[in-house]
Every structure is written in structure tokens, then in C-alpha cells.
């Protein structure tokens, strides 16, 4: 097992390097740099001499591969440098102050979609063909067909602009402030997760319900409660861990659309601004954070799955 984890960690380091390399070169292939964008925002054009001076000051005149080596040399020591746009703020500072917003949205979304998605999925599987099943199918089709940004805009139009139930002012961090402001972002962010959880839960439970051991459990006279909770749920919910893990990683990484529409200052929002401002260090820092998050969750998901399901083993039998 230790050997397996070590192998996976080594693979993760490789993936991190590859992703950072791709991003670094792609980012520098984008026309105009951070200083051009700054000048452009003040309706000025950067003179070539000034640009050259700035470039040599920031080391941007060196060959790309040297710049990359330099960046990675600092990055492995967790020094991601200063932002080009938010000058005087380091990438670590930006991420640690903005990420909590994305985290909060992600956790709210996860809680909401587990309740709705798994609830509908369980209902649909246990009472096949009932109104709950129909509702679940309807909801999952809606989630599939409705683009999140369209849904978010419509919710905002109806509940914030027309009915004035919530304001369009943005959100406060934490659960003490105006918590109602989080309702619309959470619901519109939940389309994808609800869909996945509903479909997987329904499929997984229907499969287990048809299995021989459930029939055996019923025929030896166990109570329906016991069969449902001990035999069906425990076995059916294990495969859901495999979709739940990567989903959580995607959620806490922040959402570009939802954060932009609801003015949540999370990492998704900052990242889009970073790309538009050509904030090289912010782009790299966010990308590395995301890739790290995704690969760690994949690893953890696989390990948790092996723990829950004794049939899964990553150790080769001798």
C-alpha cells in the first residue's frame, strides 16, 4: 500500500510539472503582456523603451525556458512571487484571502446537492415509477439542459431584481453575515452536482436492489428497514464516493461563471481577471493550486474507495 501511494505521489509531481509547463508556455504565447494591459486600461500605449526596461527589471526578457526554470525553482519552495496586477500582494496572500469565498460556495453547493441529488436518487430507486422518480428525472433533465450561467441570470432577474428578496450586492464571508445572499449562487452552482448525484445514486441503488444478497436478506425475514439501511445503502453508496471526490475538488476550486454573475470575489473570479490582465504569476499560482487539488482528491478518492470496499486492492498479489 505504501508503495502504491509513493508511486501515485511521484506521478502527481510529474503531472504538476507537465501542467505548469503547458500553462507557462501557453500563457506567454498570449499576445501582449501585463504592462501593456495596465497601460491600455489608462488609454495609453507603452513606449518600447519603457517596456524593455520593465521587462529586464522583471526578468521577462530572458529566454522562456530560463524564466520557467527560475519560476519553478521558487515555486517548489512555495514562493509564487508577487502579482503583476495587484502589486504589493503576493500570490499566497491573494489566494489565502480570496479562496475562502470559493470554499464557502463549494461547501454550500456540496451540502445542497447531496441533500437534493441523493434524496431524489434514493427516492427514485426505492419507489420506481413514483412521483419522486418522475420529479428526479425532470430535475436531472433540467440540470443537464440548462446552462448554469443562464440559470444564474434568470434566478437573479426573478429573485433579486423583480421580487427584491435578496440584493445584488454580493456576499459576506462566513455564516454570521447576510447568509441569504448565498442562496442563489448555491442553487445555480448545484446544477451539475445534483445531476451527477441523482443519476449515480439511482443507478447504484437500483443495481444493488436487484442483487442476490438483498433477495437473500429479504427471504430470511429481515425487516425492510434493516435491509434498506444495512444491506442496500451501505453497498450502494460506496461507488458514489468515486464521483463525490472529484466533484468536491471541482467545487472548492471555484466557479468562473457563478462567481462573476453573483460578484463573489473567489479564485474563479480573480483567475478570469488575472487572464484578462495577463497577471502571469496569478495565472500560474492558481493553476498549480487547482492541479494539486484535483490530483490529491483523485488519490484520496481511490484510497477511501479501497478502504470502503474490501474487494478493491491496489497491492499486486504475489
Amino acid at each position, binding site marked *: 500500500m505504501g508503495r502504491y501511494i509513493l508511486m501515485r505521489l511521484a*506521478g502527481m509531481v*510529474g*503531472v504538476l510539472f*507537465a*501542467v505548469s509547463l*503547458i*500553462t507557462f508556455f*501557453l*500563457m506567454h*504565447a*498570449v*499576445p501582449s503582456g501585463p504592462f501593456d494591459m495596465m497601460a491600455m486600461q489608462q488609454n495609453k500605449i507603452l513606449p518600447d523603451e519603457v517596456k524593455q526596461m520593465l521587462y529586464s527589471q522583471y526578468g521577462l526578457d530572458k529566454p522562456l525556458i530560463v524564466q520557467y526554470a527560475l519560476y519553478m525553482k521558487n515555486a517548489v519552495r512555495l514562493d509564487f512571487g508577487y502579482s503583476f496586477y495587484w502589486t504589493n500582494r503576493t500570490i499566497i496572500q491573494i489566494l489565502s484571502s480570496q479562496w475562502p469565498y470559493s470554499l464557502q460556495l463549494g461547501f454550500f453547493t456540496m451540502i445542497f446537492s447531496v441533500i437534493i441529488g441523493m434524496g431524489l436518487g434514493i427516492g427514485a430507486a426505492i419507489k420506481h415509477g413514483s412521483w419522486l422518480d418522475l420529479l428526479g428525472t425532470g430535475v436531472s*433533465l433540467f440540470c*443537464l*439542459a*440548462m*446552462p448554469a*450561467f*443562464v440559470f444564474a*441570470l*434568470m434566478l*437573479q*432577474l426573478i429573485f433579486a*431584481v423583480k421580487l427584491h428578496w435578496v440584493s445584488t450586492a454580493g456576499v459576506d464571508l462566513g455564516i454570521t453575515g447576510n447568509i441569504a445572499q448565498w442562496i442563489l449562487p448555491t442553487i445555480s452552482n448545484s446544477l451539475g452536482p445534483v445531476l451527477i448525484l441523482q*443519476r449515480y445514486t439511482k*443507478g*447504484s441503488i437500483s*443495481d*444493488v436492489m*436487484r*442483487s*442476490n*444478497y438483498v433477495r437473500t436478506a429479504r427471504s430470511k425475514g429481515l425487516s425492510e428497514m434493516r435491509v434498506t439501511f444495512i444491506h442496500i445503502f451501505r*453497498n450502494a453508496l460506496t*461507488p458514489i464516493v468515486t464521483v463525490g471526490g472529484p466533484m468536491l475538488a471541482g467545487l472548492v*476550486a471555484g466557479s*468562473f*461563471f457563478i462567481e*462573476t*454573475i453573483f460578484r463573489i470575489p473567489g479564485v474563479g473570479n480573480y*483567475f*478570469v481577471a488575472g*487572464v484578462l490582465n495577463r497577471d502571469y504569476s496569478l*495565472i500560474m499560482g*492558481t*493553476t498549480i493550486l*487547482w*492541479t494539486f487539488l*484535483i*490530483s490529491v482528491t483523485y488519490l484520496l478518492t481511490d484510497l477511501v474507495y479501497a478502504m470502503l470496499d474490501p474487494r478493491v486492492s491496489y497491492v499486486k498479489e504475489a
Partner: protein
Amino acid sequence: MAVSVPAVEPLKRVKRGGPLQKAWYRFTRRRWAVAGLIFIVFEIVLSLCAPLLVDAKILIYPYYNDYSATYQPPSAQHIFGTDEFGRDVFSRVIYGAQISYAVGVGSQLLVTVIGLAIGSLAGLIGGWVDFLVMRIIDVLSSVPMLLLYILMMIALGGSLINIILAMSITGWIGVARLVRGQVLSLKQTDYVRAARAMGASTNQIVMSHMVRNSMTPIIISAALGVPGSMFGEAGLSFLGLGIAPPTPSWGQMIGTYQTFINAWPWLVIFPALVLAVTMLAWILLGDGLRDALDPNIRV
């Protein structure tokens, strides 16, 4: 997963015909899938015939600015209203369908060809080629997708071809995985061994056995991939990184006018509605195809 008893519902009997006719019969039994297909065909025909309709003066030219009729609410003359240049929103939505379908269908074709080639190569040759392909897939599936799209769009510029490329850059992974798995398992089957023993060339084996046997899951994944690519295009255009104006695209219209949703809601609602209904139609079609082509798969 657990051992499951055979499917409960008996399959509908079809008296005559080959597998394709049987699949078609099963497909036509699914009303929602047929409704989706009809809507898609209608939309494709309408958007392709749009220039003819403009010539015949049935449809207003989508780039025609009428400054005496800006921000008109929906009326008999402009059934979806007009925008800030007095352009007809209905006609722009129809022209927008061309972009959406070009991206959706175009990228899925590209994805299928690339995935088929890479997947079958990796499965057939094995060894270091397989290793390399799998590592590339590992890396590409760890890159945050939207990040890749956004960087690509800014680096290459927002044209139709570039959007199709961006949608395809990670899309081939699924097809490649699928084909590789099929090739690996089919390699071991008796009929492939028999074909090889009879002296069939690798080319023949791949074409007549492996590709043909993988066709059903590939068709299904392509049909279900179309709405995904359409959604990707709409998302990029929504962020202002997709199709550049004045060429109309649904996502771009939604993105441009989202801030005016209170004053002129029809500018956002109609493109959004058409986008949602189109995605729904493709999903219904894809689900119907899956049920019709592969009655053994049950989700």
C-alpha cells in the same frame, strides 16, 4: 458492482430487418427522442436556409441596423424584439444556430477521428506508445479545462475554427480511452485471433473488427458530446472570449446583454431559451440513440 439479475423488461420483438432497422424501430418507440430529433432537424434546416429566407424577404438580415427601431420589445414584426442597433433578435438567434451547430457537430467529428486514431494505436501497438498516450491523457485530464480553453482562446483569437480546436483539445480523451479499451479486449477474442491466423492484415482487423465493434459506444458518446461542446462555445462567448461580434452566437448575446436583463429582458431570454431547448433536444436524442443501439446498457 453487484451481480444483477437479467433485465426485467422483456425486449420488444421486431419481426423483420437487420440490426439497423431494429435499432430504428426501437428509436421510434421513444417519443421524446423522436421529438428531439425533429427539433434538431428543423433547427438545422432553418439555420442553413436562413440566407435564402433573407433573400426571399421572409427573414430580416441579421446585420441590418435600424436606428429608428432600437430596443423594440417583441412584436409581430420582430417576434424576439430588437437590440441596441435595431437588429432583429429572431434572425440573429437563427444565424447563431449556425455557430452552435458548427462547434457542436464539428468538434465531435474531430474528437471522434482523433480519439479513434490515438486509441486504436495505443491499444494495438502497446508498449511505450501506450505508456506515452496514457501519460498524456493523465496530464490533460488534470489540467483545469476551462483554464485551457480560456488561454487557448486568448492565444489564438476567437474564431470558429479556434473554438472547435479548443473544444477538441481535451475532448478526444474519452473516445481514445473507450477505443483503447475495446481494442485491448477484442485483441484477445477468438475471432480476431482467427482472422489473424487466416492472414488478415492489421489494417483489415482494425477496420472490419475493432472499429466496427466500437462504433455503437462511439456514436453514443459523440451524440451526447454535441450539447457539451455547444455549452462550451456558449460559455466562452458568454465570457467574451468566443465568436467576435457582429457575428451572432447565443452565448455571446446572453453575455453581452446580461447587464441589461432588467430593462430589455428579451435580449437575454430568447437566446437563453433556444440554447436550453437545443441542449435538451440533443440530450433526448443521445439517450434515445443509446437505448436504441445498445439495449443491453441500462442506467
